[in-house]
């Protein structure tokens, strides 16, 4: 990828610095994240979009685990990036991932509050036979065998079911710590609660999840056995 907007580009004379009508993500992905953030804070949309490409999977997965709905998770993710761009000047350092996860958490909470005010029955896509449609192909791990894909799907359903049984505050903490790999300080930064509260919520959430998953382990031994073998 080339970098445009420099003095040797004739369009630089005609357009403000950092904007080029033909530029789409022209910044090198290998560019330092800090430099990208600074450029984005100066209004450089292409630099911000480079950051979007880096973190969109993490934000989408977080939203998906909190909301348990793909469409709502996509909406929340888009809303989160929009809010992040507008509020980028409020970022003062620290973990940028945690800062972004906070925006998506807020977007998820807004959706949950909306859902609480106007409860709706989600429309699950169904086949002609009335059975729930399988997850789309693009969601599946292309490197896994068919049996592994089935096991992965079963495991994912089990985990999501147990996550949905948790209170939202507990669910958010465990998603950030155990699914996104944030440390306690980053989770505290993202959720804006004290460190002691993070420890407490995480411990409670893990115990509850363990009890819930124990039931699924008896029903889906293959899926859990597969995970145990991988984790060994």
């Amino acid at each position, binding site marked *: 990828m080339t970098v445009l907007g420099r003095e040797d580009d004739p369009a630089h004379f005609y357009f403000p610095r950092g904007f080029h009508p033909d530029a789409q993500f022209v910044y090198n992905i290998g560019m330092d994240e800090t430099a990208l953030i600074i450029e984005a804070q100066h209004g450089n949309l292409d630099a911000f979009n480079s950051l979007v490409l880096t973190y969109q999977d993490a934000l989408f997965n977080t939203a998906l685990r909190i909301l348990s709905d793909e469409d709502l998770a996509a909406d929340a993710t888009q809303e989160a990036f929009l809010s992040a761009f507008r509020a980028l000047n409020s970022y003062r350092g620290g973990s940028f991932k945690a800062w972004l996860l906070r925006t998506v958490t807020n977007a998820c909470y807004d959706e949950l509050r909306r859902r609480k005010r106007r409860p709706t029955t989600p429309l699950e896509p169904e086949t002609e036979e009335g059975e729930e449609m399988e997850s789309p192909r693009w969601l599946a791990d292309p490197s896994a065998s068919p049996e592994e894909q089935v096991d992965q799907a079963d495991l994912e359903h089990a*985990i999501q079911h147990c996550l949905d049984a948790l209170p939202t505050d507990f669910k958010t903490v465990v998603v950030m710590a155990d699914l996104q790999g944030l440390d306690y300080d980053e989770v505290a930064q993202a959720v804006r609660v004290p460190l002691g509260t993070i420890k407490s919520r995480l*411990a409670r959430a*893990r115990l509850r999840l363990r009890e819930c998953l124990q039931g699924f382990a008896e029903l889906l031994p293959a899926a859990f056995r597969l995970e145990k073998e991988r984790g060994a």
Partner: protein
Amino acid sequence: MKKISFRDVENLSAYLDGQTSQAERTRLETRLKSEPELAGILEDLREARQILRRTPKRRAPRNFTLTPRMAGLKPPIPRIVPALSWASAVAMLVFAGILGPNLLGRFSFGAASPMMSAAYGGGVGGGPPAAEGPYPETPVSDSSMELTPTPELMMMTLPEATAAPESRMIQPEETAAKASPDFNTWLILLPGVAAVLVGAALVLRWNSIRQFRQKSNIK
């Protein structure tokens, strides 16, 4: 055996994540060796964390990158546009500055100034032309009043009235004809220059808006 409190469970969870102090870690490890129930809870926490960490990670269903329109960015103004706008404004001001006095000068010939009338020989207020020839002598009614011209008196005699140059009303068209040809040139040139500058600024601005909208519609 010491009773297990929820504080112990918290510490075990933090111990699992490496988030405890050295002193607390040592204390827990000592207890874990002697308390199987505590060890069982630690194992439960470890399994839960292990399963969660293996949750399949989905790829984003699409790119969530922002377009300029989504981000609320306005079409950029090419740098040269403000300069063109200023130049056109200056050109119009100069045009007005030249046209105004020019129009005032035309309208003032209907009530000609005394200086202008004298220069062209007309009477004040445009009166009838002066009569030609010497002024008629005043008739003397009494011969006793007749003066005998002396040399001094001859010298003091008013010179014959010179014939007034042929005077006539000056027509506005002649003023215009005699007006400096530079005025007419500027009156045409400046509005033209201003129109060209404004047109160039508008074209550049329109082009940048068009490109901005094209980019906004790209997904």
